[in-house]
């Protein structure tokens, strides 16, 4: 070693070292104090804050959506069910790169702009680590494809859910309506916590009307999840309350018969039980498949439905408004009898047309075109109903005047909603002086009264309203609000009895006898369905014009545009002595009532000749 080392002062070296160790010890103590101070700050001063944070990390409140109530027909046939299905959801926080993930999913199973937009909307409302639904109701193939590529799709999860299903497709579309995904306006309207975990809401039909009942009550559970969003255990749970089941008056078989009888004919059939107002069948053709709407109908399919000239989305039974035509005649006859303007024996001369004294205009009878003359030289009330004589009712209408005419029809429910338990019902029009003043700001002209006298002119009615009118006649004056649902979760839903029309029994009998002639008398306008009947029918045909026919012009069925052809009506009830069914059939552009009454016969046959129930 170097000689210099020999002169080292080892004592001084040790002294310097001791000094430095002392300094270092102080620094170490200070530094350890800093650590203590820091841990003290985290663990004591901010303990509550961090404890809350760690609990929030660990525990998630999850909604347990209730199962939607089921809908059954009167015999317990399932009409609306909940089917298990798979949905693809994304835990955004677990995705490496959300846009790459979405692109990848798109390349695997397809994803349209709408689904992306809905996802972003739902994401906005979700909480961290929620699984945000991206694509609802995956097909088995899509589920398999996602499953296979799962490892390349961090953040994506497949979850099971129950989806609304309508096993009978378009047969019941206008009765049940459908549920669809909750949209933005609905988000604002609904109580958000009732819909936590629920993505669907009733949009139309029973699904909408009974939304509150069908929905049920949401349950909650606190779950412990790890950082990857995996649920480890359920900490506590409050079970959801399932929605209530609905039982309908409707008979699935009768509905099938009615739909089949109508066939391809656009139109509607409404059959009511006159003893309680229950809707036995309600058909509107064409229909649509409600299943299409449940998880978002494609824009293309929707525009096809919306823009179709056949308007399949229109529920003709309750929203279609048509001139009732001659079907109003028995009701006007009853009004005339009650007011003493006519007796069953009163006759009117029928040359085939009618003129108001002092007016040159001729009001034509429909028979004129066929026979070139009237029904008979003298027509009485019975014949006027059975053969649907217009001239008789032009005269009666003129004698009644618009005020009494309007008052006579009002108790049957024209111009008002029936109160049926589906939404968007239309009220039709019962014209009156006040109505015309209010709507058109015009005075009432006497000639217009004559049009209303044969159910034309301003008058409009829905098939449901006519079925209700048939019920009133069947019950000789009283009725029940038409109702689809008979039981909500087993509890009876009773429709109140309403006194509608007050008239003497003799007058009722006279009018009903005349309505029986419509079917049972060979001269009756619906005598074609009068053969081989096992029961009695009282009914009334109707034909209503779609376009006005110029005076003296001839209605030429062959050469007229199909959509300008006349509507055919038939309203009836049976059996006459103890009515068990009241029905209205509309054949839109059917040409005449002959397109309607066979349908009614088929439905009544099905209902009255079966063993049970009828």
């Amino acid at each position: 070693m170097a000689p210099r080392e020999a002169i080292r002062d080892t004592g001084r070296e040790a002294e310097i070292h001791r000094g430095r160790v002392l300094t270092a010890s102080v620094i170490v103590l200070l530094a350890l104090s800093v650590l203590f101070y820091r841990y003290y700050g985290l663990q004591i001063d901010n303990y509550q804050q961090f404890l809350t944070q760690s609990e929030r990390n660990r525990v998630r409140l999850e909604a347990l959506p209730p199962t939607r109530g089921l809908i059954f027909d009167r015999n317990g046939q399932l009409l609306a069910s909940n089917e298990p299905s798979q949905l693809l959801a994304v835990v955004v926080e677990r995705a490496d790169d959300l846009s790459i993930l979405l692109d990848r999913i798109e390349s695997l199973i397809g994803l349209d702009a709408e689904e992306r937009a809905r996802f972003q909307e739902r994401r906005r409302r979700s909480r961290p680590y929620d699984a945000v639904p991206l694509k609802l109701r995956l097909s088995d193939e899509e589920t398999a494809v996602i499953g296979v590529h799962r490892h390349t799709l961090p953040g994506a999860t497949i979850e099971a859910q129950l989806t609304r299903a309508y096993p009978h497709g378009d047969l019941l579309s206008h009765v049940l309506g459908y549920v669809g995904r909750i949209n933005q306006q609905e988000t604002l309207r609904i109580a958000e916590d009732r819909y936590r975990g629920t993505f669907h809401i009733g949009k139309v039909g029973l699904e909408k009307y009974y939304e509150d009942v069908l929905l049920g009550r949401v349950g909650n559970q606190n779950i412990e999840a790890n950082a990857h969003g995996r649920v480890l255990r359920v900490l506590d749970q409050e079970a959801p309350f399932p929605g209530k089941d609905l039982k309908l008056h409707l008979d699935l078989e009768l509905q099938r018969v009615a739909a089949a009888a109508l066939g391809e004919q656009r139109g509607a059939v409404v059959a009511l039980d006159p003893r309680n107002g229950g809707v036995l069948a309600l058909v509107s053709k064409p229909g649509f498949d409600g299943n299409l709407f449940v998880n978002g109908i494609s824009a293309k399919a929707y525009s096809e439905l919306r823009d179709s000239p056949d308007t399949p989305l229109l529920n003709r039974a309750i929203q279609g408004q048509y001139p009732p035509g001659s079907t109003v005649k028995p009701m006007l006859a009853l009004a005339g009898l009650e007011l003493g303007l006519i007796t069953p024996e009163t006759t009117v001369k029928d040359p085939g047309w009618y003129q108001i004294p002092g007016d040159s205009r001729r009001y034509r009878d429909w028979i004129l075109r066929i026979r070139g003359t009237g029904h008979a030289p003298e027509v009485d009330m019975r014949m006027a109903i059975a053969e649907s004589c217009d001239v008789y009712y032009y005269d009666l209408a003129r004698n009644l005047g618009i005020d009494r005419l309007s008052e006579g029809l009002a108790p049957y429910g024209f111009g008002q909603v029936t109160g049926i338990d589906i939404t968007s019902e239309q009220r039709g029009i019962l014209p009156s002086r006040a109505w015309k003043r209010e709507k058109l700001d015009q005075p009432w002209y006497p000639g217009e009264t004559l049009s209303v006298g044969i159910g034309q002119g301003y008058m409009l009615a829905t098939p449901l309203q006519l079925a209700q009118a048939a019920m009133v006649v069947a019950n000789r004056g009283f009725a029940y609000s038409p109702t689809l649902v008979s039981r909500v979760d087993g509890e009876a839903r009773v429709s109140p009895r309403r006194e509608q029309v007050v008239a003497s029994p003799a007058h009722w009998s006279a009018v009903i006898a005349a309505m029986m002639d419509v079917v049972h008398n060979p001269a009756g306008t619906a005598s074609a369905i009068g053969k081989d009947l096992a029961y009695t029918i009282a009914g009334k045909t109707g034909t209503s014009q779609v376009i006005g026919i110029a005076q003296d012009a001839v209605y030429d069925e062959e050469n007229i545009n199909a959509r300008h052809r006349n509507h055919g009506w038939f309203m009836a009830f049976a059996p006459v002595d103890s009515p068990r069914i009241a029905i209205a059939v509309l054949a839109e552009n059917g040409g005449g009532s002959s397109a309607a009454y066979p349908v009614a016969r088929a439905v009544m046959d099905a209902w009255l000749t079966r063993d049970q129930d009828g």
Partner: protein
Amino acid sequence: MAEYDRYLTEDSRGDFKHRNSVLNALHLDGWLLALLVALVTYGFFVLFSASDGSQAALIRQARNFAIATVAMLVASQIRLDTYYRWAPLFYVAALLLLVAVPLFGVGAKGAQRWLSLGVIRFQPSELMKLAMPLMVASWFSRQGIPPRPRSLLGALMIIALPAGLIVIQPDLGTSLLVAASGLFVVFMAGVSWWYIAGAATLFLMSAWPAWLFVLKDYQKQRILTLLDPESDKLGAGWNIIQSKTAIGSGGWSGKGWLSGTQSHLDFLPESQTDFIIAVLAEELGLRGVVLLLIIYALIIWRGFAISVRAQTGFGRLLASSITLTFFVYVFVNMGMVAGILPVVGVPLPLVSAGGTSIVTLMLGFGVLMAVSAEKRVIRQ
């Protein structure tokens, strides 16, 4: 080595007692050994929980400690003058390995830090953590204490060379720690306070240019994240937010051993390695942290005590700088997990899972033991 013996201090001669002949025979310091056993035992309990009761993790850790204990025993048997003589060679070898890293090394996460020797992969920078204090201590022992400017300059070059090589791997954190282990020797050697003050001033003045020109983006990111972890909740800030949450939610008495939700539900990253203190803090609370701090403080105290009683300047420098380095690991790890220091890859000494750091640390304690055994060796 006759010259070496001459530097023994007079007062240290009477210190020796036949108190514990077995420990003496093995060249072991009883106090230090007891404290290490306490620390390692404590650490095993924490690791058991951090690994979700994984037997494999415990066995792996036990194996690491077995190797490390053997390494420590071997290191403690070696005479101090042997270290003194071999220090330069050891240093040069470690330096060459560092040079080899960019040439033959294997990379991970954008940095080349590893050398692969068939089945074993190791970081030469870990070797340097031990070689550095040995070299600088032997340098000053040769050059004289307190250091004169010329030997100081030499020491700074000895320090700067490997630190520079590690920086370019790049591994700034390790580089700073390696440099620190050398600078501690400089400090312990009694470098003038004026120099220290001057260096501190220079360091502060260079901070701004370093930020602009030297630091890489990910390094800046770590510092920025430290200042405001909320700015990047799910990215770089995630670790810090979760570790602070784990620590804070432990409170005074903790959630109970094996009951930490942050760690067991995977919210806490690296819970077996660098962030294991958060598991301890969450489950055992502040009192568990204080107990750990006390054990560490006692180990540091014992290390200093050994250094003060060392017979030679070399031993004093070596023991005190190894002790200080140990302390720095504790401080940096506990500080970074608690969010007061940037996140660098420093494990919690002798608690975190991981072989290399345990072996290096135990080797260091072996050297400490050798220092404490020095006087007895001389007697015998």
